[in-house]
């Protein structure tokens, strides 16, 4: 994907997902949202990382072969799961005890907009007027480490990283990191800090498609997309 003013290609969804897994710590428990985040699962190779799905399972690592599905084994995105001996099942009360109780270390979600103070809007497009919250508000409000994976702009090349979200909020002041198709950003003290650029990109080109002042704390490195 490349807009005419772009200095280089933007990453595709799989590359964004793969890159986001670089920021997962071993021995952690992770919840993946729908869309780009759900693609992360296939790139997690560390066996000490446990995947949690809010419908009541952790420890899964594979989707079931289409010929061999069982509706009693599903993730929250509606994908059927291959069973393995590390999986544990529980009901929705326990599942949200885990979330609200802060037992989930990291959640990776998609977003329509993220603001510079870490607010996230990801459940409703105002023009449509109706949307689905699901577990996103619980996850964002209660997880220590919230990573957003998304395309950097809308299809019209408008910024999705903004001063203040115009879309209805999912949670306030919770996003720690954003991985987009042009860079990796951290949110710290009400600032968007650019940590890494996609290959061929530079600070000015990223600034041009970002709705807030982008800060850089040191020499920017290129995202090493081939070695995650």
């Amino acid at each position, binding site marked *: 994907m490349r807009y005419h003013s772009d200095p280089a290609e933007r990453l595709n969804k799989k590359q964004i997902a793969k890159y986001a897994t670089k920021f997962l710590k071993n021995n952690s428990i992770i919840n993946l949202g729908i869309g780009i985040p759900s693609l992360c699962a296939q790139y997690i190779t560390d066996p000490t990382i446990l995947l949690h799905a809010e419908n009541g399972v952790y420890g899964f690592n594979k989707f079931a072969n289409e010929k061999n599905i069982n509706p009693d084994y599903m993730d929250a995105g509606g994908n059927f799961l291959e069973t393995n001996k590390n999986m544990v099942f529980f009901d929705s009360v326990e599942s949200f005890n885990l979330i*609200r109780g802060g037992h989930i270390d990291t959640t990776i979600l998609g977003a329509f907009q993220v603001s510079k103070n870490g607010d996230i809007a990801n459940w409703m497009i105002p023009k449509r*007027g109706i949307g689905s919250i699901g577990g996103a508000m619980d996850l964002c409000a209660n997880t220590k480490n919230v990573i957003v994976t998304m395309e950097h702009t809308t299809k019209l090349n408008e910024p999705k990283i903004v001063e203040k979200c115009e879309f209805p909020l999912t949670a306030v002041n919770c996003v720690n990191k954003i991985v987009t198709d042009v860079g990796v950003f951290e949110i710290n003290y009400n600032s968007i800090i650019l940590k890494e650029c996609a290959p061929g990109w530079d600070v000015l080109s990223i600034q041009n498609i970002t709705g807030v002042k982008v800060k850089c704390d040191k020499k920017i490195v290129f995202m090493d997309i081939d070695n995650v």
Partner: protein
Amino acid sequence: MIGGFGGSGGQPTRLMLALSKKKLKGLTIIGNVAGISETTGYGWPKNIKPVDQGIFFRTGIADKIICSFPVPASQNPKSPIENFWHNNKNSVEIIPQGTLIEKIRCAGAGIPAFYTSTGVGTIIENNKETKFINNKKYILEYALSADYALIRASVADENGNLQFRGTSRAFNPAMATAAKITIVEVDEIVKAGSLDPNNIHTLGIHVNRIIKRRKNDIYP
């Protein structure tokens, strides 16, 4: 209340089909992932036409829904709940999933209300009581009960003790405790005392009626 998580596993599909054909009006449906399977196939095997809670709005027996996930991400094609919402905007109440399940759990556990940080700073906080506890803001949410819970389990014994399989527990056990009458749809009924008493997921005292599905039902 309708149990499960929206997919075919854990959903009382036969009870839902039977209810949707009854000559009733004005039902309030309490669900979770309520209306996305029919148009997206969410959680259903590809060769079977999905059933979701939109069925109650297509047949017109319901006039309100309380859930966390009423509509899919795409509006094409429009789902029955989205069509209903267009003319009844105040009759689709969307609640964060963790708050919804805790409201139901509390109803079954004799707890009238609870505080949660979920939804702080969003429209969920509007017109609700809030409180700072240890310098953190929380919203007061109230318990939610129902007249009937339709749920799905794998096995029941003759005393109504239930076991679930895999991820098909979801909202079923909590809903069983929060309704005046709980009706469970099961694959198998076994003799009283033949389930392992160490391994009962829902207690029989919460279950009022058991419906056994046909063997090899077309719906999973």
